[in-house]
């Protein structure tokens, strides 16, 4: 399979690029919701428009009313979300949430997927426990109680946690914290008794929760997949979230780079356009090279994931690490090359820097994925 978009994908990219620039732009969405201090951090009307565009059900099976597309297609949407810094629940809901629900019972899919596809339901994913992403260790416990489970513990960095109609929680149903087995995924409805949120606004203006589960009673129907066999599902959710975040980062990096090269072509100092200075030209050309490489490895990993390749897991980590490093370089160079105005809230380049930081941390930073690459490679 060639590493460029096929005809259908190119058409999708065309329409999503226009849609996101028109409807998801920085002024209309990110700045608007930020400046009115919106409790969700995103607009539900836009989420509805996502549905009308057919984006919310991209990954869902046709039998569930979805389009049965893959991560290449989801990545097209995420790259444009990144380029426009569009706040939306697309990644946690339509990518990670839907991926989790693919392994769920008919009943559970029927309960949540129609709302997701209609753009009315938001999902969040609760995996992290602590400030760093370490999903190998899961201490949050769901103990058997009656016909169901009682969930106790805490989760951090639950993006859109307070906006979500359901939170997909990775909990331990047996064994000790670091065991691979003994993990179960639950779709926990927001109105379940015993859920406590400490919602905080993050540096990029998104809202994430520290969630506490105080003996939340769950019946058996909330279990996704097999009890104690949730690690396999979790791994799929992680891969989906990681490659999705990497795709979004290529958009963030690309957007920052486009702003920066435009600035180099318009800002004058010493009687010259600053883009005439070779010191800046070489840094811009290096950054271009890195962005191209990041995009290439992201589409490679997406294709491998869609094709069910045994190399997918490795390449997803390679892509997440590479995209994070490159996007970080893009926003740092962006702010520096903008000079003083790069430090102002008025200019958008700083917003790219903020989003990059949040995305890098989401589902494992570059060091975490470098460690994984070493381990998966056998050293």
């Amino acid at each position, binding site marked *: 399979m060639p590493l460029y978009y096929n005809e259908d994908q190119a058409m999708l990219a065309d329409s999503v690029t226009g849609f996101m620039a028109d409807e998801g732009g920085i002024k209309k969405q990110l700045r608007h919701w930020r400046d009115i201090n919106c409790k969700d951090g995103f607009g539900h009307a836009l989420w509805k428009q996502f549905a009308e565009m057919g984006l919310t059900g991209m990954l869902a099976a046709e039998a569930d009313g979805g389009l049965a597309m893959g991560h290449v297609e989801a990545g097209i949407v995420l790259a444009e979300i990144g380029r426009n810094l569009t706040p939306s629940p697309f990644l946690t809901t339509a990518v990670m949430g839907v991926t989790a629900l693919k392994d769920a019972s008919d009943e559970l899919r029927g309960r949540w997927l129609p709302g997701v596809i209609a753009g009315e339901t938001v999902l969040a994913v609760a995996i992290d426990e602590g400030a760093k992403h370490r999903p190998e260790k899961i201490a949050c416990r769901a103990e058997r109680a009656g016909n169901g489970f009682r969930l106790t513990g805490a989760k951090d960095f639950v993006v859109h946690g307070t906006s979500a109609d359901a939170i997909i929680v990775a909990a331990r149903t047996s064994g000790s914290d670091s065991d691979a087995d003994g993990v179960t995924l639950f779709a926990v409805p927001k109105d379940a008794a015993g859920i406590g949120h400490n919602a905080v606004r993050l540096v990029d203006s998104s809202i994430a929760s520290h969630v506490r589960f105080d003996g939340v009673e769950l019946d058996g129907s909330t279990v996704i997949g097999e009890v104690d066999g949730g690690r396999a599902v979790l791994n799929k959710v992680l891969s989906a979230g990681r490659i999705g975040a990497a795709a979004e980062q290529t958009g963030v990096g690309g957007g920052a780079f486009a702003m920066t090269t435009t600035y180099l072509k318009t800002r004058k100092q010493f009687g010259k356009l600053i883009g005439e200075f070779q010191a800046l030209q070489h840094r811009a*050309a290096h950054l271009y090279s890195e962005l191209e490489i990041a995009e290439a490895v992201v589409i490679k990993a997406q294709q491998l994931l869609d094709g069910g390749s045994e190399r997918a897991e490795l390449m997803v980590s390679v892509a997440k690490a590479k995209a994070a490093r490159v996007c970080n370089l893009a926003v740092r160079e962006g702010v520096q090359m903008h000079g003083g105005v790069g430090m102002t809230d008025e200019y958008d380049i700083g917003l790219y820097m903020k989003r990059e930081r949040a995305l890098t941390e989401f589902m494992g930073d570059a060091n975490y994925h470098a460690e994984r690459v070493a381990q998966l490679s056998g050293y």
Partner: protein
Amino acid sequence: MSDLETFRAEIRAWIEANCPEEMRRPVQGEDDICWGGRNFVFKSAAQKQWMEVCAAKGYTVPDWPVAYGGAGMNPAEAKIWREEMTRAGARPPLSSFGIWMLGPALLKFGTEEQKVHYLGQVARGEIRWCQGYSEPGSGSDLVSLQTYGEDKGDHWVVNGQKIWTSYADKADWIFCLVRTDKTNVYQGISFLLFDMTTPGVTTKPIKLISGSSPFCETFFDNVVVPKSQIVGQLNRGWDVAKYLLGHEREMISGAGGGEQTSTIGKVLTRNGLDDPMLRAELAAFDIDALAFAAMGEKFLDEIKVGKAHPAQPNMMKYAGTELNKRRHELLMAAGGSTALEWESEETRGGAPSRSWLRTKANSIEGGTSEVMLNVVAKRILELPGA
């Protein structure tokens, strides 16, 4: 089964049946490569056999037309060929500047007669080519070259000097940039082909810091070149030269499976490595190597269908060579004092240190990294005044 799946199965079976076991082991340095040519001494019977059996099927240049010695594969088939060769661990049956550099230029600018004659020789491994580009005063500023061809009616008389001519002392023919009009800088250069045994051609190897001499100084003293041996139009050789440089840069970049795209962490840590900092550097390198391999694959896919930016080979060359230099810095670091040995059995005659030093030329030859960045800034980013 789709046509491509059938094709893959056939290619796989053919490689399985025809590639000698010895040719499925990694190449050990430049001396171990099959270069072909009049004076080439095969390192083994297997090497000769593998080249010949491939040449007979057009597989030394699988995507060239059959009429010019190729197998006429389309981009999808050529990709399958590369994938199956990699899968089998099979060496390229023939490597040459004729394949990588002159071939693409002739396919675009050559006459039908030139294509049939010269490309066929390249495909069969009969003639080994070298490249006469750089001169002592014309390195990065290549277009200032002074080697001059005086018009003598049905031939030119060429005088001047080239430098950094790779394997000039081993090559049979040269493709050479020669000034044919002193009044016009860019449109005063012609692209000439001539036999290295022509009277007046002499070569002198240059000893490098690696101890080997892959490059030569090449001198032309009243060398007679018939007018039929020009590629493209008179005084428009710079167009051919630039086009060819794109392919040279693509080749040096390692796109499509060069050494720089392979990971090193696993190999270097197999005997244990009590150095967590180095391990972290290896992981960071492996990430960049795997990412660049994907870039190489994407670049080759795109270039075949005209989707790649025409200046993209410059980016590839920059990224690939910088990566390869880093690779060898890590190989040296992991090797410790053993890797310092300049002459020993254990290091196969100082292979690690010699290869490490050789890679320093990667970001100089074929256009320096700095020139590559200039080209990207100007032609791709369209920055002002670049």
